């Protein structure tokens, strides 16, 4: 049902996808082309220009897949009082919303696969990446856990709507932080050395950078295992936090809407 809903306005759906991808990729292309040309170098950090472009293609697609579509959905249900109907459904509200979010993940995963395949067959995979079936499988696993972590983080923030009138700006803050600290705006390898340990302790890096690095074959098996442990730990902590806020928030909920 959610997939049908997403695809019901096909023109909007595809124009948004292409517009977002082309703008992000186009800006990155010109920015890095200027930097590589000005410096007269083949590599910035460990990235060749083609490698950098592949990263800038993969990162927004991964972000799109992990972050899903609807923003402010849960807080709106609370704000409008429509949450009441879910309280009488014989299914958990969390699971219902998670299932709806999964529909977006599936669609955006298909777009991700399509674009990456096109890049691989037309331009080729740069030599600094060692893409393999194992790296793709590892990356996919990271993306799925990341999508769950993002869902539970955003859902917890949206539950603050039990106390505050409008919380969409908190979700936008989360997106801003994810785009910078998660590696969508820049590969995390380009951050100063002192920042790396800090970045990989926060959840943001595991939403975009870690899955993309794994997918492109930049992550060793040992690093993948430790990364998955960290992201799983964050997911567990955030789920517990969600439950706590949900329990408290329900006592606050009047059901009349505002």
């Amino acid at each position, binding site marked *: 049902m959610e997939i049908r809903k997403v695809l019901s*306005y096909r*023109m*909007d*759906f595809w*124009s*948004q996808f292409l*517009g*977002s991808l*082309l*703008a*992000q990729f*186009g*800006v990155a292309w*010109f*920015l890095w*082309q*200027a*930097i590589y040309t*000005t*410096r007269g170098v083949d590599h*910035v*950090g460990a990235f060749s220009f083609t490698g950098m472009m592949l990263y800038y293609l993969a990162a927004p697609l991964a972000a799109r897949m992990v972050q899903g579509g609807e923003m402010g959905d849960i807080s709106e249900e609370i704000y409008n009082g429509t949450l009441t109907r879910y309280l009488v459904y014989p299914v958990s509200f969390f699971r219902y919303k998670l299932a709806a979010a999964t529909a977006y993940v599936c669609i955006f995963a298909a777009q991700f696969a399509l674009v990456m395949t096109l890049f691989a067959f037309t331009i080729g995979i740069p030599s600094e990446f060692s893409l393999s079936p194992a790296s793709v499988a590892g990356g996919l696993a990271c993306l799925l856990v990341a999508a769950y972590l993002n869902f539970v983080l955003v859902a917890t923030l949206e539950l603050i709507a039990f*106390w*505050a*009138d*409008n*919380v969409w*700006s*908190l979700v*936008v*803050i989360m997106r*801003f*932080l994810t*785009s*910078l600290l998660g590696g969508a*705006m*820049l590969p995390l390898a*380009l*951050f*100063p050395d002192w920042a790396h340990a800090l970045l990989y302790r926060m959840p943001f890096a595991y939403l975009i950078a870690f899955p993309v690095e794994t997918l492109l074959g930049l992550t060793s098996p040992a690093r993948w295992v430790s990364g998955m442990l960290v992201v799983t730990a964050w997911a567990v902590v955030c789920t517990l936090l969600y439950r706590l806020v949900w329990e408290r928030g329900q006592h606050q909920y009047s059901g009349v809407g505002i």
Partner: protein
Amino acid sequence: MWRYLTLYGYCLRFSFSRAMEFRVDFCFRIVMDVFFYFIDIVFFRIIYLHTTTLGGWDENQAMVFVGCFLLLDALDMTVLANNLYQLPQSINRGDLDYHLIRPVSPLFMLSLRDFAANSFVNLLMAFGILGYFLSRYTGPITPGGLILLAGSLCMGFLLRYLMRMLTIIPVFWWHRGQGLQMMFWHMTRFIERPDRIYTGAVRVLLTTVLPFALMASVPVRFFFEPFDPGLFLHVSAVLAAFIVVVAVFWRAGLRAYSSASS
């Protein structure tokens, strides 16, 4: 003119009192924009760890550019964003009727009536950021240069408004123009990088038909570089062309408007 200023004064008063009704949201939005400023500044700081110049600008000059596009964004969020966000819905629901029968320009009311009081705080911050980066700039700063910077930023802001209107007006015919408006937001990324990095056909496109590269970069170029009459004429011509196109397009849209639930 006086009547419009008085009217805008009333709009400001209503907007501030409405914003104060949702105090938590008021604070959240301020914090949200602070994060937006923070990530853009950090982004450019990290970029300059890997290069000494970008689009012909050193780090200090680029940070003035960052201040300029943050200021443009803050102006948009404060003065226009709430209004233009609601405009497509007003067209579809027939709410435009109320504005068409009033003895005041509908475009004025529809574009300016809701002043985002929370973003006003951020507008002050954006001014502060620009002022800070200007104070760190070690080159010569002249009153003439500052006037030129302010004037061309106003032109950039007007251009941004006109571009945005061009993505909204098709709603008169299509009834759903979310894709086009999202496209506008995606394209605003081109404002946030120095114009000289764009080359070839894309550069031509971004300085004429989709003049995103002119909005924040040109004011900074006027400020740092010797005055270029050719560039000034180019921006003025593009601005004039967009004013005419939006005026014609808006009138055509109003003719196609069929009131409630159109």
